[in-house]
């Protein structure tokens, strides 16, 4: 075999190797992207919100938080989990209704309203919040979460959860 032919053979085989690696890599990449995105996507999907009915404005005493239990459907892939979440409705002096989460921002225990101290108290580690959800004492790092509310023409309150 002459040097020239051997050179041609090496070039041809070099091209083959390049095509084999390129095409195999491309097929692998396509499958990896489809599989990888399908694996990762649900982990980064945000839960959609929904407006839930939560009673009527007239049933609320001003500045007197009232706990309401809401039936919330969370989509978990193929499964719909039904949670019952407690939210405090607070009717302000201006008649505006605010919705405050009952979940303590420290470690997730449920707070309750202490009508004598006029504070939200956490039974786990003594976290305290005022009627607007602001931290007054204890370990909680943030105020209680609040939710958007709206009231329709029949004074029905809806909370966005």
């Amino acid at each position: 075999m002459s040097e020239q032919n051997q050179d041609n053979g090496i070039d041809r085989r070099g091209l083959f190797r390049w095509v084999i690696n390129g095409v195999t890599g491309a097929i692998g990449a396509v499958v990896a992207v489809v599989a990888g995105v399908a694996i990762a996507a649900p982990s980064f999907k945000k839960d959609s919100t929904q407006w839930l009915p939560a009673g009527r404005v007239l049933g609320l005493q001003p500045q007197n938080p009232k706990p309401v239990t809401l039936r919330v459907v969370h989509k978990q892939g193929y499964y719909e989990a039904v949670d019952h979440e407690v939210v405090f409705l607070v009717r302000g002096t201006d008649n505006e209704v605010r919705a405050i989460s009952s979940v303590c921002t420290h470690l997730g225990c449920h707070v309750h309203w202490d009508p004598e101290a006029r504070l939200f108290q956490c039974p786990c580690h003594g976290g305290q919040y005022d009627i607007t959800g602001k931290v007054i004492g204890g370990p909680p790092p943030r105020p209680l979460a609040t939710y958007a509310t709206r009231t329709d023409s029949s004074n029905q309150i809806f909370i966005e959860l």
Partner: protein
Amino acid sequence: METRGNSVKDVPEPHARGRVSQWCHDRTGYQTALKVLLDEPLPSGTGWWFTLGSILLALISIQFVTGFVLMMYYVPTPAYAYDSVQYIMHGLTFGHILRGLHFYGASFIVIAAVVHMLRVIFFGSYKQPREVTWLSGVFLLLLILGFALTGYLLPWDQRAYWATVVTTNIAKTAPFAGSYVSALMKGGPDVGAMTLSRWYAMHVILLPAGLVAFILLHLFLMRRHGISGPVRPRAGRMHPFYPDHAIKDTLGVAAVFAALFCFAVYGHATLAAPANPADASYVPRPEWYFLSLFQMLKYFHGALEPVATIGIPTLVVVVLLLLPFFDRKPERRPLKRPVVIGVTVLAIGAVATLTSLGLRDTPTEPALATWSPAAIAGQTIAASSPCTSCHTDGGAAAVLGTAKLTHDDFWIKGHLSDPEMIAPGLRTPPAGALNTLQVNAVLAYAKKLREDIPPPTVDAQTREASVVLGTRCMGCHTLAGDGLASNGAPDLSHEGTKRTADWMHKWITDPGSIDENAMMPAFGGVLTDQQIKDVANYLATLK
């Protein structure tokens, strides 16, 4: 035994070594392993027909990857199997491509495996010393068909359920142990939760383990004996597998993958209505590659049935297994082997003919997007008292139609006849039980909810007609797959092609005025004239 031609030393290095690969090679010796794996010397003239094994291996690898990801989302229980597949198809990013690759990949594998086997038969590649290689290939084909069979049930839709009912009944026709085999396959007297979980276990554990074992054996034997090469040996030196033949394999795999990907993206893998064991109207059909066997059953009745269900398939497998021991002469040219080639061609013709006849007989699936009158009647019932005493905004239970329905028909039937059963003593049950027809109407509505088909917008007359049809007429008649079909009453699905609205109005009001021997009772005093008009006008539209 073929000579091995070039030794490993004669062929070029598989990879030019860079600094990183050299570092790795110094510590692991991986280049030597690659050299041993890739430097298979191939006879001169080894062409494109010899790429089928690599194509098959690539397709199987894709099934492993996609199957692994599908397992993360699929739930093998009757309550969630269908929902989880629906979620994969419609809720998961790239989910429909993922399932498409797996779904169509199964068909591609069956085609590639059969074509690979036919290539081996036509090229006489099963002959001495490759008999055991051939046997391992036959077992691989059976394992692939096992995958196809067990995987078909997993979506738990009507096609899957009823095809499996037929399959397990076929197993029952086997002589002596048929009923035991069928019971083992089902895990009980009927196809149900136990069947689904054991077929799933087979599909994801046992069959993959067997497949990997037989693929390793097949590849080991292929390397031990070398590939058979062209039918007529050609002069010329041996070539290394890599890259001389690997380039053909790669291009073949790329072409097949491109086709598979197009099917996955644009084909939308089938998902019929959810499995409903109570739906006696469904006509089962297997996947296309089992259609020839299914069609064959039509020609063998009674005592001869086991011939088609067990006899012929077993005979085909036995003939395949014994082929290298019957055809022992070294002659490989097809024209010099008229018996083997003739029988193979006849078998291909028979399978093709039976498959084509089976395809021609396949009924179209009922239109999912339509709501029958019974379903509309059920929706109307669900939106009224007593259901709304609990199923209301802020009520004890979700508003019907707003949340995914996961309960099966059996549970719903129990709930409708005794609404208190889900929370005994906790709340006052609503007054007024539903009768059988009303329950059936709600079940038809529940079916549409499970299928996630949005409710149609219907005018007041159509709704009124649907309620009457669904809660009264369906006691004797059938319509759009609903109804009890008793007293010999006809199906009303195409009534508009037979009668006018005026005629039907008269008939419903007093059938005796048209036919004194009519069996249908008069509804003149039972329904209002407007209700009868609505029903007659609606039925007249059914062409």
